[in-house]
């Protein structure tokens, strides 16, 4: 297969110790950033504890965590061809299904052009998600 031909031509390094050391150094740097960052953040901006839970007191602005904000904002915008809240909740599930089954949906050949198209999809979706997240955070 073309893979093996390329394997013989392409320069390789042994996993141990060369690449393993690369990874170990990167892991060490990342751990140091996390630990030192946490020590700084713990004093400057620690994770808070809001007032204790009160089932009878609904706060005015209740929002999910930031990584769900785009979904939250999206649910406010989606018009409902099917009446009721079910449609807004189904769209993310369908999107997740499309994502999971993507290798079976994308039957194109692997070319530079297909990579560029996919990068464009990522950029467009990324911008949409970013805008929705910001709107979700501020509204």
């Amino acid at each position, binding site marked *: 297969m073309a893979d093996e031909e390329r394997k013989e031509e392409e320069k390789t390094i042994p996993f141990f110790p060369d690449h393993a050391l690369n990874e170990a150094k990167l892991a060490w740097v990342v751990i140091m950033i996390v630990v030192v*960052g*946490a020590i700084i953040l713990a004093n400057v901006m620690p994770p808070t504890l809001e007032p204790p839970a009160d089932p009878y007191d609904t706060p005015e602005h209740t929002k999910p965590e930031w990584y769900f904000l785009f979904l939250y904002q999206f649910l406010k915008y989606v018009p409902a061809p099917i009446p009721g809240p079910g449609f807004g*909740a189904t769209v993310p599930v369908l999107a997740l299904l499309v994502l999971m089954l993507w290798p079976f949906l994308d039957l194109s050949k692997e070319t530079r052009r297909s990579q560029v198209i996919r990068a464009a999809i990522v950029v467009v979706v990324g911008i949409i998600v970013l805008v929705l997240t910001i709107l979700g955070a501020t509204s």
Partner: protein
Amino acid sequence: MGGNFLRIALLIAALVAAAALVLRWEKPVDASTLIPADEIHGQVDTGDIPVEQDLCLHCHAYGTPHEVWGPTLRWLAFGAGALVFAYGTYRSVSLWKGRRRWKSFWERTVEWLDERYGIVEPMEKILKKPVPMSATRWFYCLGGLTFLFFLIQGLTGIMMVFYYEPSADPSPTDPSVSVAYASIEYIMNEVRFGNIIRTIHHWGANGMIVLAIAHMIRVFIMGAYRPPRELNWISGVFLLIITLGFGFTGYLLPWDQRAYWATTVGTDIAGNIPVIGQPALLFLRAGWQVTGLTLSRFFALHVMVFPILALAFMGLHFLMIRRLGIHRPL
């Protein structure tokens, strides 16, 4: 036979001598000779820590009758072991002009295991696998970094689960807050480095999600999901769902206003999915409302179910990568 008997007898004699040494020096002290803790507190400033918890003074405070030989012998024994170990490692890497090649403890251990289990051959295969230079670019590290963050979350999570109590009942010491809330306050204020551990866990959760998505984008753009790697991609999406599940279940655990209402809204939305929504809501909330039972369930999901699922899917994900090799770029 005689030599064997001698070796065993010497070993037993050495153990008995060590035990006698420790027992003689570790004998309990007459408590009346100790300085009471509050007097020490007056003489020595240990800051916020009571004398009993001070690292050095706790042995001298009233009520903990130990002598100083215990820690001394411990330091000497472990220190001697460390020095022997370091010496052997040094000798094995330095030029050794003697008759027989010096083997360090590492090498002897690997040989011993290899004679019995034949570990060298498969380990050689794993460790010497060639890595193409194209796979050493920075964006190939994102998956491994996600795994690193998973380990960090696991470690800080274990440290916190030693102290966290998943109960919504009012705390006996402060009835205005729940036991769970009080235990997190305890972690933040009383546990040594507790606030740092919790901060790492909080930001590590966000970081892991960012890295997982970045890794997914990298794989997506480079088309590394194509045959034969479809299952790899699917297991990856499952891992993303599991990571988001970790975030969602962990978010409820402080049992404060933000947690309670974010969970209520989130499960509400899940409940609106047609067909599967209502059973999903009942399963997640353990009832129709978010109650203490919900907290228990989310805790079990966060600490038992999702870790097991994560390990299972990660095992599959990594095995498949090993088997298929790294996808070659164009």
